[in-house]
């Protein structure tokens, strides 16, 4: 058989058909454009976000590693270096602290020695840049830019002389041994850890006498071959190297879970976008092909083959893609580079400074993948319409009546407008399904977006997590020479401020609880099974406890709370406490950490001493009425491993005489009031031994991120909604036009325009209500999952009903009005014209 060269003719017909359908093609191009844009943005955001989390950890640590082992022994270092899953293991030792440069006092400027592996493979990747080289000679030193700036050196130079005062961290030395030394600057670097630090040579490190095994000074930084690891991997590593009692391999054990969560979120979003785009493009082509089916039939009668017809439909899809994909990618590029970058920085990094280029992934493959996905969506969407066009016989094409051919006998209805509307909704089941799916997807996304916005709503978060407007903490609480800074006079002064509503205080003191197997036995056994005590000997420690209950390792805090504090604690415990008994000192609440449940402590009597009390040698006893965890601790500072005891302030005063105020929590009459805050802060002006946690300050930090999330989330939701709504408009427009003859018939037998509009409105409401119900069934559980997995604060999930109801109302109103508007615009000719127009 000879091959006929008809490619040109098919091309010409395809072009003519394409030109004749300008409106349809513009809509399709718009859909391809939005789909491409969304896929590219979602890809880039997902991957950039992951990069940010990783990068942030590197920046905060000032080093690139996955896990670390503190105070490593030589044998442990060797074993770890030989492990199959370890890529690098570098040693870092903190050996000295510089106090002064010339006459400038410095804020804890630590000097580190890093071995070659640590510096090259772990420290260097966390630096933005490095000038000079790592110290080699004993008097050479390298500082971070921040440290040099603190020293007043704006333009550092290699070879500069730096006279400093420092003390070593050698365990036998004390703070008094200040050494004066002139270092030579051999390099500097920019990093973002926010800490003041410098590196010194191996020779200098040796002179300090500090060893890697010294408590808190030495550390083995480990980079794994695969950065994804489970907690069990760390436990196994600990066992393999035989850790000491004070050692614990530290690492983010949630990394795999977080990675999977991010991947699942990304995949879910892509599926949603893909489906939305598919439904939209499919729908446009489906409507267009079924509308033009007679035209295709005519083409067939003049000899066009099925393959040629299909090719013609696909060609149009390709042309649409060629127009939509590049524009979508261009917009995505601009949006990612500008808006997304800013949002990610604010959301993920907070105060940590980081150049945009380091975070945002603008790799070519992302754009190729996004374009490929969008192209695939476009082509797959056309398959069914192309099949219809290609496989319909010429005669069938001339008689093609779409989906009405399959209507079977059904129960006789009451003929009301409601019944008519209901039947019309499902007259084309495919159309109904497309409407429901596209609406359900976009509304579900909106529900999720609403919840994500709620999860990041600054005021909502702050109101949930902080129970006061400003929290002032005495930082000297645990010091030997602690000082009563939050005095009753200061508290009275605060109370005098008219815009202050309440001031409550939390007092604390050291207490000694003798070893008591009956009360604490189960708790300690559980505690020593946790990862945090993996290297410690339960038997040895308990023996120590029995012999020396006053050992700092065991001594808990004795916390006094006022009436308001009681109310809050009792509420979080589930109202199990009797106020009178609590006030009288008959009952206390035990606060423990790391273990689950109450370990059988509830209801038992515990004994304790108060070394700072009126009778230091007297043994007191109190019943533990409830056990709470760290979240419920009214105090800021915790004591040793034995659970802290929370009692009433009255009782604490009775035993201690004067109590020591650890923190005060202040509520304003008007939350977030800047004036009140200023007045409160002025009471402690110049006081450096306190720390302040202000709701207003947190709000100011968080509101930028909140706004950006609203914009990003809202935009994604809006784009999906635009796709769904356009889908709906498009389908209703086609539906109303296809039913033109039916409307004319209805009018001819006496249906008023008002009744027709009512019927159309009912159809719209039906679509909207079913979509909203489906979205609630899918979207609400989904939003719960997203909320619980994304919230960074311990806030409760709640449905943002106002936003959601607003959304539902908008959908219902649009669904109701659109068909009526389309009807008004398209059915404005006389009944007869419409009847004739649709006669075959």
């Amino acid at each position: 058989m000879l091959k006929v060269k008809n490619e040109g003719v098919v091309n010409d017909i395809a072009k003519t058909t394409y030109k004749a359908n300008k409106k349809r093609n513009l809509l399709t191009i718009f859909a391809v454009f939005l789909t491409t844009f969304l896929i590219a943005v979602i890809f880039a955001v997902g991957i950039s976000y992951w990069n940010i989390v990783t990068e942030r950890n590197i920046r905060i640590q000032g080093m690139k590693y996955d896990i670390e082992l503190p105070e490593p022994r030589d044998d442990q270092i060797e074993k770890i270096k030989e492990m199959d899953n370890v890529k690098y293991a570098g040693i870092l030792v903190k050996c000295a602290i510089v106090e002064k440069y010339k006459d400038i006092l410095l804020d804890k400027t630590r000097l580190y020695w890093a071995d070659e592996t640590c510096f090259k493979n772990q420290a260097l990747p966390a630096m933005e840049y490095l000038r000079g080289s790592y110290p080699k000679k004993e008097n050479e030193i390298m500082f971070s830019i921040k440290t040099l700036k603190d020293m007043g050196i704006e333009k550092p130079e290699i070879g500069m002389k730096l006279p400093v005062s420092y003390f070593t961290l050698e365990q036998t030395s004390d703070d008094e041994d200040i050494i004066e030394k002139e270092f030579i600057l051999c390099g500097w670097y920019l990093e973002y850890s926010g800490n003041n630090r410098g590196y010194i040579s191996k020779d200098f490190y040796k002179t300090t006498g500090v060893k890697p095994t010294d408590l808190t000074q030495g550390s083995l930084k480990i980079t794994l071959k695969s950065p994804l690891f489970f907690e069990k991997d760390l436990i196994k590593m600990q066992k393999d190297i035989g850790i000491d009692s004070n050692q614990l391999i530290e690492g983010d054990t949630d990394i795999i879970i977080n990675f999977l969560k991010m991947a699942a979120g990304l995949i879910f979003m892509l599926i949603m976008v893909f489906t939305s785009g598919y439904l939209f493009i499919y729908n446009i082509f489906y409507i267009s092909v079924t509308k033009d089916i007679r035209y295709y039939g005519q083409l067939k009668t003049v000899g066009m083959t099925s393959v040629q017809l299909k090719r013609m439909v696909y060609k149009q899809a390709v042309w649409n893609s060629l127009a939509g994909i590049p524009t979508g990618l261009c917009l995505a590029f601009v949006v990612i580079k500008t808006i997304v970058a800013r949002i990610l920085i604010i959301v993920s990094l907070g105060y940590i400074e980081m150049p945009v280029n380091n975070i945002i992934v603008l790799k070519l493959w992302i754009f190729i993948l996004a374009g490929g996905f969008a192209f695939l969506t476009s082509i797959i969407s056309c398959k069914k319409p192309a099949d219809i066009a290609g496989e319909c016989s010429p005669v069938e094409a001339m008689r093609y009546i779409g989906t009405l051919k399959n209507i079977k006998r059904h129960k006789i209805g009451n003929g009301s407008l409601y019944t008519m509307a209901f039947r019309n909704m499902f007259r084309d089941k495919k159309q109904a399904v497309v409407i429901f799916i596209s609406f359900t997807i976009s509304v579900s996304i909106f529900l999720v977006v609403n919840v994500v916005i709620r999860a990041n709503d600054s005021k909502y978060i702050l109101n949930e997590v902080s129970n006061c407007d400003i929290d002032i903490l005495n930082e000297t609480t645990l010091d030997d020479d602690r000082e009563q800074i939050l005095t009753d006079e200061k508290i009275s002064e605060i109370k005098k401020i008219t815009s202050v509503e309440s001031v409550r205080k939390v007092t604390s003191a050291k207490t000694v609880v003798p070893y008591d197997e009956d009360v604490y036995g189960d708790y300690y056994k559980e505690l020593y099974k946790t990862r945090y005590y993996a290297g410690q000997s339960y038997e040895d420690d308990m023996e120590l406890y029995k012999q020396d209950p006053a050992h700092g390792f065991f001594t808990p805090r004795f916390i006094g709370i006022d009436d308001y504090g009681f109310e809050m604690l009792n509420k979080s415990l589930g109202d199990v406490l009797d106020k009178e008994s609590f006030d009288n000192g008959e009952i206390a609440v035990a606060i423990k950490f790391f273990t689950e449940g109450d370990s059988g402590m509830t209801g038992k009597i515990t004994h304790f001493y108060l070394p700072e009390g009126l009778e230091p040698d007297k043994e007191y006893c109190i019943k533990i009425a409830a056990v709470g965890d760290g979240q419920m601790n009214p105090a800021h500072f915790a004591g040793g491993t034995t659970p802290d005891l929370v009692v009433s302030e009255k009782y604490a005063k009775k035993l201690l005489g004067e109590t020591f105020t650890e923190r005060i929590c202040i509520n304003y009459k008007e939350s977030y009031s800047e004036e009140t805050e200023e007045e409160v802060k002025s009471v402690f002006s110049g006081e450096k031994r306190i720390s302040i946690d202000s709701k207003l300050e947190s709000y100011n930090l968080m509101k930028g991120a909140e706004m950006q999330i609203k914009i990003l989330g809202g935009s994604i939701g809006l784009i999906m909604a635009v796709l769904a709504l356009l889908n709906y408009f498009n389908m209703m427009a086609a539906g109303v036009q296809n039913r033109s003859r039916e409307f004319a018939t209805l009018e001819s037998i006496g249906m008023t325009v008002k009744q027709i509009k009512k019927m159309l409105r009912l159809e719209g409401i039906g679509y909207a209500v079913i979509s909203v119900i489906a979205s609630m069934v899918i979207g609400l559980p989904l939003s719960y999952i997203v909320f619980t997995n994304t919230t960074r604060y311990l806030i409760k999930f709640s449905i943002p009903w106002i936003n959601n109801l607003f959304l539902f109302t908008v959908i219902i109103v649009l669904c109701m009005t659109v068909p009526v508007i389309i009807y008004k615009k398209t059915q404005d000719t006389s009944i007869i014209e419409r009847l004739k127009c649709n006669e075959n």
Partner: protein
Amino acid sequence: MDILITEDLKKYYEMGEVTVKALDGIDLKVEKGEFLAIVGTSGSGKSTLLHMLGGLDIPTSGKVIVDGKDISKMTKDELAIFRRRKTGFVFQNYNLLPLMSIYENIVLPIKLDGINPDEMYIEQIIKILGLKGKEAMMPGQLSGGQQQRAALARALASKPAIVLADEPTGNLDSRTSLDVLGLIKTAGEKFGQTIVMITHNDEIAQMAGRIIRIEDGKICRGGDTNVKGKE
């Protein structure tokens, strides 16, 4: 008594620069209970006249008075209610609603008026028109003749004063055509309804009580109510 009167009824269409006179001064009177056939060649204006009589189209000028009311001055919704209560239409293409059963199609004009159908009467129509047992079927499941009978049943269901039939047998074979026409005539006589029918088939027109012929938008024969039977 004249149930239907037209006075100088005109319908002009603008086709570019040309004015097409579809109806050009029709004066017609139809008595109650009369069976009138309108004949004419294609494009003569007979369908336009029928549409004017049924309030489906608005005249350029002149009057259409049905049961003493001038429908040419009615609003769209008034016209819809007029059609629902006073007229019954039978189209050549049946125009049954595809999503409704035969029964639902028949009673729809009554339901649209917010009243319950007279079941005895509907039952009677269904029986006369041979649709018994077909009530729950969908239009697409019936033959052309059955669909046209269903359309006729719908036209009669609301007991309209006038039944307007536009080429009711146009899509039917000759045997079915005669059946349907017989039924129209019988039903009209039985229920005392006025029937106005368009046809281009002279044989079918002969079944009417009076025939008028239209040419170029004007009645050329039979406009006078005294001319009975053949033209």
